[in-house]
Each structure stands twice: as C-alpha cells, then as structure tokens.
C-alpha cells in the first residue's frame, strides 16, 4: 500500500508463498461437474472490457510509438528504429540505468532488513504484550498508505537547507555544518533512497510478519533442545523458513521501486542536474518535458519489459510454492 505508488501504487500480493497446506486440496473445479469456457465468459466480461480498453490497448500503442520518431509537438511521424538507436546507446541512458540500479538495490537491501527487524520486534512485542507495540506498528504503516507526492514533500521539508529543514537544524545543534542532502549529487540519491525506504518498509514488515507467524514453533523448540542460541536459531530456523517470502518480497520491492517516480518528482524533481532522474522519472520527463513521444515510448517499453519479467519471476515463485 503504500500503498500508494505509482508508486502510488502499492502492489500487494494477495497470496504470497508459504502455502504448503494448499497442496492437499484438489484444483478448484466446479462442484457439479465442469463448467465450460462459455459459462465463465459473462463473469469476466466487465473486467476484460475495462482492462482491454484502458490498459492493454494503450500498452500496445506504447509499443507501436516506440518504433516511431513521433513528438507531441507535431502530428506526423515515420516508423523506424531511430528512437531505439538514439536512446539505448546514449550515455545519459546508461547513467539512468546506473542510478536506477543503485536506487533499487539499496531499497531492496534496506527494506528487507528493516522490514524483518521491525517484524521481529513487533512479534516479540505482541507475544509479550509490551506497551508501545501497536504505536510502533501503526507509525510504520502510516508512512506506507500516504500518497507518494506527500512523502516527497515531507522529506523535502525535513532535508531542506532552509531554516525549516529538520535534519540540518539537528546537525547544527551538535556543531555540524549544513549538509546539502538535496543539493549535492551523491547526497540527493541517498535522500531519495531514504524516502523510499520510509515508504516501503511497512510492506516488507507485513509480509515478513505473516511469514514469521507461520513458522512452526516446534522448529524453535527443537533448536533449543539442541542447545542453539537465539542467534543460531535465527540463522538456522528463521531465515531459511522465511526464504520463500523474502524472495517474493524482493521481487515486489524491485517492481515498486522501478515504477516509483511521483515521490521523486516532489522530493528532488530529478535533480540536482539529473542526479536523481531514475528510469520512471526519465520516461516522464522525456515525454512531458521534451515532448519526445518516440524516445519516451522506448523508455516506456523498457519499463514494460522489466515489469513483465518481474511478473513472470513472481509467477514462477508462486508456482514453486504451488500457489497458482
């Protein structure tokens, strides 16, 4: 949720792994005999119509535009590979790929580890009825359901160099001179990553917590009987048991982060220069600032290909868990 991504969109798996129990059930089939394909059509029609008109068809058009030199400024265009030739080998595209990779990999690492840390703490807190547990969990979740643009605005205010910039005011009280969190090239990308972690950790926490809850307590008892320390049982029992859900989580974080741009737009606008212009924001700028429909569509097709590869990876993961 966070949902809210374009990340406003939060993509939530309704059925992440860990479903061994499902295996015992037969494939769902209509109780009173098989129902034919025709029988299902009326049920699917509303969804198919909306999705075809407003999602599938435009996605195919994006693919078509990528093979043109179209611009939003004129009506005529020619077909060809010029847009691909202009975009893909260019140094600016390589730069976009590089910072996007840093953005995604850092988000994966920190969201997974923080999400697991918070999930473990919340689990411990719930089991021992520690006061403050509900507040901690609610705080993490609140940052997830906020619109992405608002998250960008909050962090822009917090990290700003102006008098209302919280981070620099705090540094000043311990005698550290102001840091250009948003205005220096290296810092700015770090700031975008921090904001993304702020937004995405809740989702990892939810998945990780569900995963922790489903670990059979007998495993921990057995480990304790064998004399394992808490630390050892974490490495030998907890982590291996969470592996499937961590994999699912990794794929979902990657997709969400690749698709993120509204938050970055509000936080840095891609700057300073192009230091934080990640792939999705670059696509947006290429079309709506440079008005280059053809080249923007090439980037959109790159995004489309990435999304579909991740979707297939996700389906594979679910399949190995026999969820689909």
């Amino acid at each position: 949720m966070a949902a809210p991504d374009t990340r406003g969109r939060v993509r939530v798996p309704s059925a992440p792994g860990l479903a061994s129990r499902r295996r015992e059930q037969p494939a769902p089939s209509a109780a009173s005999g098989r129902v034919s394909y025709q029988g299902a059509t009326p049920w699917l029609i509303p969804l198919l119509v909306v999705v075809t008109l407003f999602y599938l068809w435009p996605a195919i058009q994006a693919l078509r535009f990528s093979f043109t030199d179209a611009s939003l400024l004129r009506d005529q265009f020619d077909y060809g590979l010029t847009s691909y030739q202009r975009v893909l080998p260019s140094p600016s595209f390589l730069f976009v790929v590089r910072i996007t990779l840093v953005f995604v990999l850092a988000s994966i690492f920190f969201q997974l580890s923080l999400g697991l840390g918070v999930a473990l703490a919340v689990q411990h807190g719930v089991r021992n009825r520690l006061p403050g547990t509900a507040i901690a969990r609610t705080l993490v979740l609140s940052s997830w359901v906020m619109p992405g643009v608002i998250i960008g605005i909050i962090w822009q205010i917090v990290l700003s160099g102006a008098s209302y910039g919280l981070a620099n005011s705090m540094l000043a009280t311990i005698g550290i001179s102001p840091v250009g969190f948003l205005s220096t090239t290296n810092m700015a990308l770090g700031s975008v990553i921090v904001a993304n972690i702020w937004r995405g950790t809740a989702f990892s926490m939810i998945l990780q917590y569900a995963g922790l809850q489903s670990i059979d307590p007998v495993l921990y008892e057995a480990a304790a009987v064998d004399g394992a320390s808490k630390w050892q049982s974490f490495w030998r029992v907890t982590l291996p048991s969470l592996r499937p859900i961590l994999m699912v989580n990794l794929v979902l974080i990657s997709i969400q982060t690749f698709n993120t741009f509204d938050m970055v737009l509000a936080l840095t606008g891609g700057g300073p220069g192009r230091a934080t212009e990640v792939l999705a924001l670059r696509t947006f700028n290429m079309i709506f600032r440079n008005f280059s429909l053809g080249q923007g569509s090439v980037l959109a097709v790159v995004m489309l290909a990435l999304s579909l590869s991740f979707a297939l990876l996700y389906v594979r993961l679910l399949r190995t868990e026999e969820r689909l």
Partner: protein
Amino acid sequence: MTVKRRRWRGHAATYAVFAFVAVFFGVPLLWLLSLSIRTPAEVFTASLNFLPREPTLHNYSAVLGSGRFQGYLFNSLRLTLIGATGAMLAAAPAAFAASRLDFRGRRFFLIGVLSLQMISPLVIMIPLYRYFVTVGLLDSYISTSFVYIAILVPLATWMLKGFFDGIPKELDEAALVDGCNRFQAFYRVILPVSVPGVAAAFVLVAILAWGEFIVPFILLSRPAMQPVSVGILSFQGTFAQTATQILAAGAVLAMIPAVAVFIALQRFIIAALTSGAVKG
C-alpha cells in the same frame, strides 16, 4: 543464560527497534505537524521546538478557505469512490469465476491480471492521452474514472479471489441444490458471506486511488478538476519557499483521509492482506 535473562535481552532489542521506528518514522511526521501549526515568524527562525510557542490553526483555515484546496479534496473523494466502487464491481464476478469455475485459460487469465498489476500506469499514459484528445475525452471525470478502474481492478481481483477461495464450496453447492442458479448463488450466498473481505479490498483499493498521481495529472488538465495528489504539487511550487507552514498544513490535510481510514481499520485490512499468506 537463564530464560529470564534471555527474555530481558529480547525486550531490550525490541525497544531498540521501536526507538528507531519512533525517530525514523515518527519524527518527520511530527515535524510536518509542527510546521503546520506555526506562525510564519517561527518557521523562519530555525527552532527545534516541536511544540511552537504560539501554536495556531490559521494555516489550516487559510488552506481550506482558499476554496481551491477544498475542491482538490472533493475531487479526490469523487475519483476515489467511483474508481474503487467500479473496480470492485468489475473484479467481484471475475474473481468468483477464477475461484469457482474451471474455464479454459483460467491460469492464463490469472497470470495476465497479475502482470497488469505490475505494469506502471506511466507506460499507458501517453497513448491514452493522445486517444482521449482525439475523441474529446480529456478533462472528463467519467473517462478518467474508467482508467482508475482499469488500474485498480487487478489488485481487487486477486484479493477477492483469495477470499472466495477461503469460502467452503459446500455453500455454493447448497445454494445450487436449493434451486439457485450460479449467479444467484454468488449474489445471494457468497457475497454476503464475504462482506469483510470485500470491504477490506475496497478500502485498500480506495487508499491506492487516493494517492494516484499520474492518471489525473495527465488526463485532467484543468486545475479545478484535479485531485489533491496533483493539486498539492502546485501548492508545493507556490508555497515551498515562501510559506512552508501553508504547504505543511495542505500536506497534512491531503494525507489524513488515507491515514485515518487505514489506522481505524488496520487490523482488519492487514488480516485480510495476510490471510492468503498464512492460511494458504
């Protein structure tokens, strides 16, 4: 090491994590709230007091009094309710079919829906924009709502399918034996039983719709039609440097509906989200 000592160490580690959460997740929010109740003078003297000396609600009345912002909030509400309701209406029968009927292409259908959920709406915006310009659908709530529905329907379908899978098939069978047709069984028996699931999916989808940015940004060009997720950005352009307290109040108002609904219903939504994961 004694059990007691171990537990104490567990408590200490847990509170260390909670302290981190309070600082990292809580402080930026508190700072925003603090700025939103400050006078201009106190915004520009760098002060770390979270509670201002002269707290004021003037910023909120200024934001809401401008009329424009009220319009943003109202537009968000309208798009959110229409989008989420439409998505549920399209998703519910499809999810029922995916859960109960054994049609050809069922797997392909489910994988397709899942893949759509992962495609960024950014990818489809340019063709949609051109298309809408040609047929004169730009700046229309009706056409924009349909795009919301298309974007929200994959998640709604997957969530609802999860709930329907959890409802015993004996229930449909009983309804069929009693003379219902399949649609009646769905409408009269399965839907009433799945109200908690449908409600949780609706709320989650509505929260997503509330934060949707790119769709209204591209398809609704007139400021008077824009939802708050887009309107707040022009607020940022106007007020970020000159009147941060106003921007802060606007940001608080823009996030409160989503955050408040979520906090009120969080147990319910989280349970719904994770039931698939835990129960299989």
